[in-house]
């Protein structure tokens, strides 16, 4: 365990930034968001950023390849480059878990090299939650907000910040900062964890019957009549999917540039009407089917393919951001609650 006085945190951040690209959540005009560290930036204490941390590995838009087209001839240009090493500082437990969920998609064979490259170059410094929002429910997915995963876990206790390396990458980062860090006793952190856990137990979203979503009940949940009511006010926008740390659907598109074609991928949303639209048909005709797809994927389809792990981390962003306040908690309560 290592520690540093909070007043020295700016020094620590500059020391990291001197060696690697450093990203951290910073309070902005409309809430906290991750940004590349510049001298003077201070770590936001907000428990949740507007955009999730998935952007670091699965950005909204990224180039995949370029093509030079000349008459009938085509030439492919591999535009990939080796990513720089970077550190994400202050990632909350829910977002750290989302990386595991994305890994199971992008690192499954055949590996997505764009994602893999970023993942390999990243060091994640997580931060325990001391002030969760009432819309937080990560504990419902067995995520311990007081003891986050990551390469290095961090805790703020009083006017000190404690660090514990959890991986080789994490050890390397901490040892590179050795001059600034003092040895810390684990007792204050253990005490703080107990305190933070107690806060977690007070959060209002508790009766959450996610266990009722079992892969073997796939068709029963799919055919539940409650989807009609749950989806009736859905606007069909993509807010929930874009702020969600685990939504990873994408589109691949071409963009004509002056001297050729750029193929890029961008986030896409199963909530959009053209997501499954083919030249002649669309198997999901109405918003009910699109809405159902999103939640069935998180609660039934994803666990069925991934050892029962749910595709939600309880970060609460969809609760805070949906224009009509429809979200996974309401879905779980309505549909999962029936068999209680």
């Amino acid at each position, binding site marked *: 365990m290592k520690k540093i006085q909070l007043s020295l945190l700016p020094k620590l951040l500059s020391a990291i930034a001197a060696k690697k690209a450093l990203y951290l959540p910073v309070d902005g005009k409309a809430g906290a968001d991750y940004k590349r560290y510049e001298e003077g930036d201070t770590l936001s204490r907000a428990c949740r950023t507007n*955009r999730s941390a998935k952007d670091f590995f699965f950005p909204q838009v990224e180039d995949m390849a370029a093509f030079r087209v000349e008459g009938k001839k085509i030439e492919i240009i591999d535009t990939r480059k080796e990513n720089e090493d970077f550190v994400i500082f202050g990632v909350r437990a829910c977002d750290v878990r989302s990386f595991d969920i994305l890994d199971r998609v992008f690192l499954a064979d055949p590996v997505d090299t764009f994602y893999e490259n970023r993942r390999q170059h990243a060091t994640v410094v997580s931060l325990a939650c001391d002030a969760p929002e009432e819309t937080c429910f990560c504990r419902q997915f067995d995520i311990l907000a007081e003891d986050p995963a990551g390469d290095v876990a961090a805790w703020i206790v009083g006017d000190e910040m404690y660090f514990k390396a959890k991986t080789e990458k994490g050890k390397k980062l901490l040892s590179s900062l050795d001059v600034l860090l003092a040895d810390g006793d684990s007792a204050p952190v253990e005490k703080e964890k107990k305190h933070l856990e107690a806060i977690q137990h007070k959060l209002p979203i508790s009766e959450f019957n996610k266990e009722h979503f079992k892969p073997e009940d796939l068709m029963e949940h799919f055919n539940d009549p409650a989807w009609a009511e749950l989806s009736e006010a859905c*606007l069909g926008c993509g807010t929930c999917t874009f702020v969600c740390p685990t939504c990873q659907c994408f589109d691949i598109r071409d963009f004509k540039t002056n001297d050729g074609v750029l193929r890029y991928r961008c986030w896409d949303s199963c909530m959009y009407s053209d997501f499954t639209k083919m030249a002649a048909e669309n198997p999901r005709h109405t918003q009910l089917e699109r809405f159902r797809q999103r939640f069935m994927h998180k609660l039934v389809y994803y666990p069925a393919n991934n050892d029962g792990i749910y595709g939600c981390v309880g970060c609460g962003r969809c609760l805070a951001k949906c*224009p009509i*306040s429809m979200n996974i908690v309401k879905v779980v*309560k309505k549909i999962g609650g029936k068999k209680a």
Partner: protein
Amino acid sequence: MQKMMQDRARELLSSGKVDRVLGWIEGDFVYDVTPHVFRENDIDQLIYHSFASQNLSKYLVGETKKDGVIAVFLRPCDSYSFVQLLKEHRFDREKVYAIAIPCLGKVDAEDLRAMGIRGITGVTDGKERIILHTLYGDVEKEKSEVIAERCRKCRGVHAPYFDERLGEELTKEPLTDRFEMVEKLEKMTAEERFAFWQDELSRCIRCNACRNVCPACTCEKCVFDNAASGIENKAPASSFEEQNFHIIRAFHVAGRCTDCGQCSRVCPQGIPLHLLNRKFIKDINSCYGEYRAGADLEEKAPLNRFDVDDCEPGDVVGKGE
């Protein structure tokens, strides 16, 4: 008010005058409100308070395609969207029973969070004051301190095309001049203004919430979703493209935007999108005389008619300054 609305809705449903009622339902939290179509069995769950923020009129486009008559509760701002949609023949008036309800201004949970008011569990609304019950105790505030930007400019007057009024009309003086920020932007140099919008719009994630909530955006196929349009896109290929989406949208709703403010309310990135629309409203007012979209069913919109003495916009606002 909530009780009055429930009672009236129940009456309308049981008398057979309407088949469904469009209103708001609460979720886990008092601010977790969703538009909902009620029937007799769940009408006692209809709520109305400071967090019933969503406008309902756009839902009529889909709801009137179904059989039966639907009652809808219209707050003042929503009543203008209602008329504008009607004017554009977007829904079947015969299938709607419109009830005007007063509004004391809405409060957004995200704004409160930014003020440090968290863990909200309940609300007691007053005319001047609001009490927010939270996990950490009650917080009492002047309404004028906490109501949403879109509500600060409201006069509380309905567009007069509803079937009945429930409660009294609560006219009030606006708390702010709605063109104040637009004027500030106009006074900026082109570079400053560009920097302002660059900063705001660069946060856009193209989730389409602003478009999908907008009562003026009712195209069956939006040009940005239409592969055949040639400009279809889901994500910006450049920062210019991002502005493109918002600028085209603002142009498309110009003269039809009722300034309901829902676009800014729903933006997950907190972009003040209403400022684009207000700039158009301000320019239309100064070029063609005061006009309010949705105020009158018959009147032709200034951008839809031509008079020989119409000004050339370039003469009024200057060219490319």
